[in-house]
């Protein structure tokens, strides 16, 4: 059977079905089932690509190569574990009255539609459809950010909507400019928007137009990645929504935006034969890293703090892709994978911690390790993982990135290290009192499911110790592709 | 020789037709408002009456006060006489530069403002300050609008510009459309019509142009009033020349000139009817709204300039 269609249709159908089902418990179970099915199909899809260079489907409308195949599987996997986490979590939120049944229905159906948008974005071969799917994924989550209907969450959702709307409009303009120059070579139809054909003809695209287009695309898609100075929406949106939404926003949506940006970078590099795109990305990445690391210290809300950590890591990835060597690209791809796993795991833990203590303010969360050792340990391990401690995967990718920087731009290694250390300091400064401080009396007992968290951290550990062969092959191939091989 | 004669005829026509033009506008307004209105010759009768009246001067009037009506009238008539209305190529056509035109009108305005302040009455000073404020904003807009047109002809000489417009094929040029709207807005300000200034008002606090004339009487007042009517005819002819010049006389023979005269009068009538319709349908703007009005005119002219480069100049 055509696994492309299966992987995409499942969340779409699930979304529509969940829009009709009224009982939250049944909806949660259907949610888990749909996501698991999607994950299964994506695994089969990955097997199909195994051993081949790339896979096209439906007359070239969809395209899987080494770069996006693991991202598809990752998205489906994190989507599945998030639904497992979300079932007891949202049940608790329903019980304490932060959401009602109608909003739960919205939550479940929008979640699956978001998944659909993400998977469509990763698998499409058409840069126009890529834009449409990214916008679709954003729209699906906008209503979810304001799910709790508090003033802060509505303000956050509005900010998210407007800022990302502006960014994505700029990205559309960049796409139009790319279409403008490609239509002179490939005609006015859909071929001129097909990424694989564009990549083959990249040398013939007009460099001046592509440079201008990349500027617009950088600012546009960069807004969705969360690069400074377009990041203002990110801490609010990730901090105010329900935790499963924060997890998928941080772990998955940012990846899609960065993926889109890198696809365009590949086109621009092929057209201009200069390092302009790479240098722009490095500049944005470095500035975002430093700003995020320093802003982290000023936070008082736990989710906002970790969302600044997301900005920091996306900045690292942007910087890595910008360097343009194969080692750096490998590091970035590995980082994409482990960051999604660890960050979503952390958000799961944080969500439970907030439920237990009844607040998201870090000053009021204390002594987790005493009354909820599972959450305490999870937070500690997760913070260590994301800060870049060995033997977790993040250490591996950051070390490779550091090596790559020393190879190509040795003087940039200093600010890189500085940013990483400042961020690490900030994270531990806040997490240590939360985990070990004196116990607060008002800690509630909540039914927690830490399984997804352990699975995520375990996977990050495995990736840090030894990357499986097929995965490292994909990383190598994708790195070669990104840096500038042939399709 | 004959061209000199026609040059003189053009100048004379401007001066003689000016009160009739003002009368035409007033009568059309009245008819549109369902009134009978005075006859078209009424302004002529008023001027004739004023010439026969005695001049009464204030005790503190200086030589500027007595000198101004002659300066204003002469400058305005000079400006009007070089604007081609019947014949395109006249002996004085080299001097028909728009910037020179604006300079002549500025000279007239300068003396008018001085005279307004000369006696020392409050209303005169008020009128002078308003006039100067609005002209400071209006002149750049007018020049900008003219520049848009001069870009095509590569010259600000009226004759050259008209010749250029006549020789290029009929095109829809958005920049000229913008310049036309801006010019119409500015012409209303410069000639002191509604919605900027009510020429028939008797309330001193709403006056701009009239306030500077309050102290004048007799032949001085006649000259000043005549000058403002000539200015109205001048701007109307300017707009017709810049934007709708078809029909203007090329060579010096009686048939062409006669035809040019008829066409010019017809265009003037259309323009004045439009002016009358604008005057009866819009209320007068309050003083603090006028700078915004002028700003809009400037922006429109500037947009015309940008659009000329964006759309009409092919790289």
């Amino acid at each position, binding site marked *: 059977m055509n696994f492309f269609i299966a992987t995409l249709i499942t969340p779409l159908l699930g979304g529509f079905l969940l829009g009709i089902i009224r009982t939250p418990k049944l909806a949660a179970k259907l949610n888990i089932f749909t996501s698991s099915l999607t994950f299964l199909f994506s695994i089969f899809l990955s097997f199909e690509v195994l051993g081949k260079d790339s896979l096209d489907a439906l007359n070239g409308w969809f395209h899987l190569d080494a770069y996006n195949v693991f991202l598809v599987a990752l998205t489906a996997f994190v989507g599945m574990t998030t639904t497992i986490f979300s079932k007891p979590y949202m049940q608790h939120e329903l019980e304490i009255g932060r959401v009602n049944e109608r909003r739960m229905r919205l939550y479940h159906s929008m979640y699956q539609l978001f998944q659909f948008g993400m998977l469509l974005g990763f698998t499409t071969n*058409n840069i126009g459809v890529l834009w449409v799917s990214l916008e679709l994924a954003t729209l699906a989550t906008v209503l979810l950010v304001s799910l709790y209907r508090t*003033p802060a969450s509505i*303000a956050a959702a509005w900010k998210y909507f407007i800022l990302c709307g502006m960014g994505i409009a700029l990205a559309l303009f960049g796409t139009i400019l790319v279409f403008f120059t490609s239509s002179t070579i490939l005609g006015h139809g*859909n071929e001129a928007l097909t990424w694989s054909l564009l990549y083959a003809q990249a040398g013939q695209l007009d460099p001046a137009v592509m440079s*201008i287009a990349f500027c617009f695309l950088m600012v546009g898609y960069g807004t969705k990645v969360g690069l400074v100075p377009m990041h203002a929406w990110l801490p609010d949106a990730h901090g105010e929504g329900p935790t499963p939404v924060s997890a998928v926003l941080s772990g998955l949506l940012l990846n899609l935006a960065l993926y889109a940006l890198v696809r365009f970078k590949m086109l621009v590099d092929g057209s201009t034969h200069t390092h302009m795109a790479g240098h722009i990305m490095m500049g944005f990445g470095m500035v975002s890293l430093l700003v995020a690391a320093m802003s982290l210290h000023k936070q*008082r809300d736990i989710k906002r703090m970790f969302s600044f950590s997301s900005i920091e890591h996306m900045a690292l990835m942007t910087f890595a892709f910008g360097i343009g060597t194969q080692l750096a690209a490998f590091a970035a791809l590995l980082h994409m994978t482990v960051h999604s796993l660890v960050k979503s795991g952390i958000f799961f833990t944080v969500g439970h911690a907030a439920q237990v203590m009844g607040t998201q303010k870090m000053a009021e969360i204390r002594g987790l390790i005493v009354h909820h050792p599972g959450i305490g340990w999870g937070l500690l391990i997760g913070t260590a993982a994301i800060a870049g401690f060995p033997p977790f995967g993040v250490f591996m990718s950051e070390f490779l990135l550091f090596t790559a920087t020393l190879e190509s731009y040795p003087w940039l290694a200093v600010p890189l290290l500085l940013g990483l250390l400042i961020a690490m300091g900030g994270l531990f400064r806040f997490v240590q009192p939360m985990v070990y401080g004196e116990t607060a009396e008002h800690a509630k007992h909540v039914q927690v499911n830490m399984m997804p968290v352990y699975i995520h951290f375990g996977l990050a550990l495995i990736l840090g110790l030894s990357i499986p062969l097929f995965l490292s092959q994909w990383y190598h191939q994708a790195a070669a592709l990104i840096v500038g091989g042939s399709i | 020789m004959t061209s000199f004669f026609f040059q003189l005829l053009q100048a004379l026509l401007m001066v003689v037709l000016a009160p009739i033009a003002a009368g035409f506008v007033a009568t059309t307004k009245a008819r549109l408002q369902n009134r009978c209105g005075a006859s078209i010759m009424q302004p002529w009768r008023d001027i004739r009456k004023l010439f026969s009246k005695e001049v009464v001067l204030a005790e503190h009037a200086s030589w500027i006060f007595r000198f101004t009506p002659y300066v204003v009238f002469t400058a305005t008539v000079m400006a009007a006489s070089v604007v081609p209305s019947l014949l395109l190529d006249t002996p004085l056509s080299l001097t028909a530069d728009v910037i020179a035109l604006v300079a002549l009108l500025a000279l007239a305005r300068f003396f008018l403002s001085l005279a307004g302040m000369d006696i020392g009455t409050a209303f005169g000073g008020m009128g002078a300050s308003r006039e100067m404020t609005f002209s400071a904003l209006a002149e750049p807009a007018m020049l900008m609008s003219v520049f848009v047109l001069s870009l095509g002809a590569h010259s600000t000489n009226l004759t050259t510009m008209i010749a250029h417009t006549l020789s290029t094929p009929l095109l829809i040029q958005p920049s000229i459309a913008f310049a036309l709207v801006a010019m119409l807005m500015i012409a209303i300000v410069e000639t002191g019509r509604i919605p900027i200034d009510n020429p028939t008002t008797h309330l001193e606090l709403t006056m701009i142009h009239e306030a500077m004339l309050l102290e004048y009487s007799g032949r001085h007042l006649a000259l000043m009033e005549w000058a403002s009517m000539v200015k109205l005819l001048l701007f109307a002819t300017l707009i017709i020349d810049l934007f709708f010049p078809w029909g203007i006389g090329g060579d010096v023979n009686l048939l062409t000139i006669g035809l040019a005269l008829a066409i010019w009068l017809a265009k003037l009538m259309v323009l004045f009817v439009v002016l009358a319709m604008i005057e009866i349908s819009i209320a007068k703007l309050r003083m603090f709204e006028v700078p915004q009005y002028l700003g809009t005119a400037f922006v429109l002219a500037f947009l015309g300039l940008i659009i000329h480069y964006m759309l009409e100049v092919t790289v």
Partner: protein
Amino acid sequence: MSLAFAQQIIDGMAALTLLISFSLLAQHRMLSVLHWFAAQGWLLAATAALVAYSTGESELYISAIMTFLLKGLLLPWMLWRVIRKLHVHREVESLMNSGMTVIIAVAVTLFSFHVIQPIEATSELMTRNSMAIATACVLLSMLMMITRKKAITQVIGFLAVENSLFFAAIGATNGMPLVVEIGIAFDVLIAALIFGLFFFQIRNTFDSMEIDAMQASLIHKDDDE
């Protein structure tokens, strides 16, 4: 209709689009902003239809009809309903006075002209002259989004950006492929629906449609004060 004549008319329509973008920035009343926005949608549909007629691309006719229905009728009607229900008839409040806004608008227009003009020469389409104008319209609509204090004008600015992008697509490429156009139109429709829902949420929670009120509820989250 000869090609040269059609090109002139399209250039004229481009000039009108730029004028509408400036007018959107200069309006003081909410309802007049809405009227100008609707006019922009109509003009856009007419331009698309004209380009479709002169280039013979029938896909563009479908886009033109879609634009007319969605951006000329449906969206203005939805916004008008929201404006009426929320009683937001009053003034458009902006961050700087209109003079400053217009000066920045002119600067933005010159900037986009400077950037896009060199690229126009590489195109052979008859609509290529309008590329710089379309870019200017996009940036002007973004300026409108930035400098307004009320939520509704931000939304109208966002929708005006989408309009200008459609115009840019026509000018640069005689329309994107139909699949993409439909996708974009669908996104815009969903976005408008979500905006509509949002307005009521905002009004119910904040009792005002001003951005400052919303931002104030987020301010205490940052910094040790």
